[in-house]
């Protein structure tokens, strides 16, 4: 019988650029200690970072969760709004609704969601305008 999965949840605050990136850095450190292969580690790190920054920049706040067992790594986010109006457009590289403040900090290149999708082995996004967005990503450990 395999051990129950390791679970971690990080609260991510809207507009808190002071701590932005800390959750994904912690995830990366843990996965490194778990001995996750460096190419998978890199993909998860990129996806976790993009997910965390999306929560900071676009959401009204939410959480980033990690679940690891011997076969998979799962990353998921869930926020309290505002939801994505045009999901299809949001998934296109280069599309961004980031405001000038975020753009001024070097964000808003419109690569966040496409980058997550590209790096994950499975990617799912659900969004309801006015309610919030949920993203689930799975990474296979070979």
């Amino acid at each position, binding site marked *: 019988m*395999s051990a129950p*999965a390791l679970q971690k949840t990080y609260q991510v605050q809207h507009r808190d650029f002071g701590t932005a990136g800390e959750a994904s850095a912690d995830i990366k450190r843990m996965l*490194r200690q*778990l001995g996750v292969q460096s*190419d998978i*580690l*890199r993909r998860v790190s990129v996806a976790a970072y993009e997910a965390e920054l999306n929560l900071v920049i676009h959401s009204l706040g939410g959480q980033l969760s990690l679940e690891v067992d011997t076969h998979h790594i799962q990353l998921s986010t869930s926020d309290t709004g505002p939801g994505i109006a045009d999901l299809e457009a949001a998934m296109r590289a280069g599309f961004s609704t980031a405001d000038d403040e975020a753009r001024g900090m070097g964000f808003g290149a419109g690569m966040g969601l496409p980058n997550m999708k590209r790096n994950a082995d499975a990617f799912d996004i659900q969004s309801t305008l006015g309610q919030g967005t949920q993203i689930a990503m799975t990474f296979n450990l070979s």
Partner: protein
Amino acid sequence: METRFHSVRLDKERCRGCSNCLMHCPTEAIRVRGGRAHIIDELCIDCGACIRVCSYHAKVAMTDHLEDIQAFPYRIALPAPSFYAQFSHQAHSIGQIMDALKQIGFHEVFEVARGADIVTRAIRELLKDHTLPRPLISSACPTVTRIIQVRFPGLIEHLVPLRQPMEVAAGIARRAFCEKYHVQPEEIGIFFITPCAAKMTAIRSPLGQRKSHVDGAISITEAYGAVMPLLNDLRHSKTPSTATPLGVGWGSAGGEAAATRHENTLAVDGIENVIRVLEEVELGKLSDLDFLETAACVGGCVGGPLVYDNNFVARNTLKSITRAMPQQDPQETVDLGCFNQSSLLMEQPIMPNDTQLKLSEDMEEALDKMKLMDEILERLPGYDCGSCGSPSCRTFAEDIVRGYCVEMDCIFLLKDRLKLMAQQMVDLSQTQRELMGKEAANAKTARETGAENAE
């Protein structure tokens, strides 16, 4: 795993077991156990941070000494560019320094700055190759290469696959000396005048090659002491430098990037800063950048742990030296056609060295240990005080699950436990007294009853 040679060592006699080095090690490679510091070989990157902060000079760099060079019939000195920057109080030229080195026992001097000119030309060629990953990361600082092996193995492919200027210089110097004087290569001892311990390590345990061309390293501080008194008498030296100002400029931060004459470069110095930028590269955030210069020491090599002069002063000295040189470019002075590729390229790949970071080779076991670590961490005070001998509460929790220490090594947990035990003892003693009191009361009642009966 094979234990690597390290030039950063501990002088057990001098170590008092304080937490200075513990708290300053960028890779958390030090633990204090049994009243003295221990260095975890696999994690140490020979950056020398501990040498700088140890108040008791218990952290030392293993280097060769000037008398050691006598073991070779013929001796060549390879001064690092940063060596030129040490003599801020004396007007001097590179020629003077080269002449002085010849007076302290060397038969020949070959400038590492010349090696840097050659490597500069080769880097410029690499930058034209757009199939190589971006950014290309400099491999000149062995400490940075080590940290990439340990913490960023995914970035190994970004490393410039060229030998260090020191190695290129040594290879050419030996060949030229053999041809000129008709001696055997093994009769020649080549010594690098080094600003850091990491270069010494790179000589004994080479990166990217089987065996170093360099035979030993003498610290800049030691060479400084021998050369400094001779400079004044050599002030009329006509010996020309064989390097360009760009090659000499490699000695301080930004010099290597500037030498590429490429617009899209970034230079980072100081190991903590380097780590932060490498994290960004790993996240793919700097993929628009062409070249990343990285130096573990603040200020670059002039800020090395084995230098004499203050690194800010030294940076300025280096600048005035390069200003006074003929303003040539390696493009004019280096004919890359003269070198076969193999003499410049690394002969073997840099390998990852990230096993020490894993909690276990078995993922399931690692997961269990990670969960246990989190539980322990919850109980720890989070002061990161270092009193337990581990650099932070998190590393302490990790050391516990690895079996190196126990929770009661934390003085705060121990204090709480003692308090609890003390309370238990008080409780115990009070229970005893109450019992006695009851007995006493009973006895009193018995006495009174007895008295009544007597009346």
